[in-house]
């Protein structure tokens, strides 16, 4: 069976700097694959390249046999590859429920004019979106606070809302950008369960970029390790744990961050 998503020797340069250097790997359907690496390894850049928020310098990203790199973000989203954001990017001036409702955009059947004149399709859409939004809020654990203004939510809930927004688009592949960043142990464990649920119950393939090693080890089917923009390892959590190059990369990075 051919993979769902293929990253084919993708490269991205910024001026003289090569942020992502001929990185290649495949993602199978219903897999949870993590991309890890020390700070500045090019994880976030790779992420933006896959979601087409950045243009590649060379190489391509293939989804279901079709090239999706170097397009508009909304076209990539329409094909089913949807990203969430590292920062807690949400629609701050809307309620939780409205955030999720508006994110159903890709399931719209009516046209803009249809919405204006409240055509049959439009009314059906709006009812369906509202129902689905309630269901997603419950699934994510935001059901109790869905009428709360998003700007009033605490950090942990914001992250969950980001995932809820992603789910509302009915994605085939969900790209999660550092979903555990800044969380304590309990919050992380809860979010790990949530991400597993997204895959197990909704059949969504998950590609995540993450820093938190224990969380990544427990959640991932496979892991890709980047360092200085290059892929240095790929394998199951057990294989990665035993990989000398990975240990070296992380130790080296730690030295730097301590200031040696």
């Amino acid at each position, binding site marked *: 069976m051919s993979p769902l998503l293929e990253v084919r020797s993708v490269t991205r340069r910024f001026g003289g700097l090569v942020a992502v250097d001929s990185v290649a790997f495949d993602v199978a359907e219903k897999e949870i694959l993590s991309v890890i690496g020390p700070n500045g390894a090019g994880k976030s850049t790779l992420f933006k390249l896959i979601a087409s928020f950045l243009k590649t310098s060379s190489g391509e990203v293939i989804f279901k046999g079709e090239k999706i790199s170097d397009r508009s973000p*909304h076209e990539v989203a329409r094909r089913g590859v949807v990203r969430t954001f590292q920062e807690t990017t949400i*629609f701050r001036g809307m309620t939780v429920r409205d955030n999720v409702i508006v994110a159903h955009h*890709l399931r719209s059947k*009516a046209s803009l004019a249809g919405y204006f004149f409240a055509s049959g399709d439009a009314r059906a859409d709006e009812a369906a979106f509202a129902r689905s939004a309630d269901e997603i809020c419950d699934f994510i654990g935001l059901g109790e606070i869905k009428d709360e203004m998003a700007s009033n939510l605490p950090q942990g809930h914001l992250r969950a809302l980001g995932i809820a*927004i992603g789910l509302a688009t009915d994605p085939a592949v969900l790209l999660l950008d550092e979903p555990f960043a800044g969380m304590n142990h309990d919050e992380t464990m809860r979010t790990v369960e949530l991400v597993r649920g997204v895959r197990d119950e909704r059949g969504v393939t998950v590609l995540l970029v993450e820093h938190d090693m224990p969380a990544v080890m427990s959640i991932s089917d496979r892991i890709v390790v980047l360092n200085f923009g290059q892929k240095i390892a790929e394998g199951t959590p057990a294989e990665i744990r035993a990989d000398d190059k990975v240990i070296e990369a992380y130790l080296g990075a730690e030295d730097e961050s301590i200031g040696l």
Partner: protein
Amino acid sequence: MGTGLRIAGVLLFLAIVFLGVPWAIQASGRWDFYYTLTSVALLAIASAGVWLTFYIGRINIGQGAYALTGGYVSAILVMQAGWNFWLTLPVAGIFCALVSVLIGLPILRLRGVYFAMVTLVLTEVARLTALALPITNGAKGITSIPLPGEVSILGLTLIPAIDTFGDVKLAFYLVAAALMVIVFAGMYRLVNSRIGHLCRSLQQNEELASSIGVNITYLRIVAYAISSFLGGIAGAMFVAISQSIYPSSFTVVDSVNFMLNCFLGGLAYVFGPILGTLVLYFGWDLLFETGRFQLLIYSSVLILIIVLLPNGLLSVFERKRATAR
């Protein structure tokens, strides 16, 4: 707010606009208020367009350009092609919408002050273009434009000539007010439909909006085209009333005022532009009797309102609504 209350509010508003105002003017003998209030209605329409661009998160200081363009399109079609004014009205709007698509494609990528400044320059470009083109007759402008005539199909009168009823001022007022009511009814529907929801998503975070699959380029263009359409028809109506147009009919000052009308009413409220325009334009007129203190009182009141209600006049009701929930 209950549906019954809302309907009652709308009926009250319509009664004031179409019955109360003519009665009050009749009683007070201030016939000049007809012209003032007609202007308020038309400026509110142009401001509604600016408000819509605010609604997708853009500061638009270029509406004067479209009002001017719409005015010239109507004037030229009436004078040179002999069209009936009522036919030129939608054409002026559509022409402006098309122009705005061409201009919007490159400039709508810009945000914040960058977009604001380009649109400000656009107003100036429109004025200078009107000065330079032969068809607009330069600084002399186009004058002695006939009043709107009647529209008839096969001898059946659809719209009577504007001077049929004797009182042209009243007729123009009623037409402008009706146009305003239609425009704002449409705006209300737009904002409360899913389109409004999408516009809000654009206003709050364009990156996230595109990540959930919204074609932000397309939506921005649609909103901007509607905005410019409204600017165009408002400009065309003004020309019909004043029967003349000059390059200086709409300038940067007007563009800024359209924007201020929106701010004053409140950027979050679809009927904000009506209130903002009424307060700014009618208020200025009312203060005329204070003579040399007119500007001082006007600006002091303006500053006071902003400091007390930085989110616009209509935000007065905000706290009430929050507790009602």
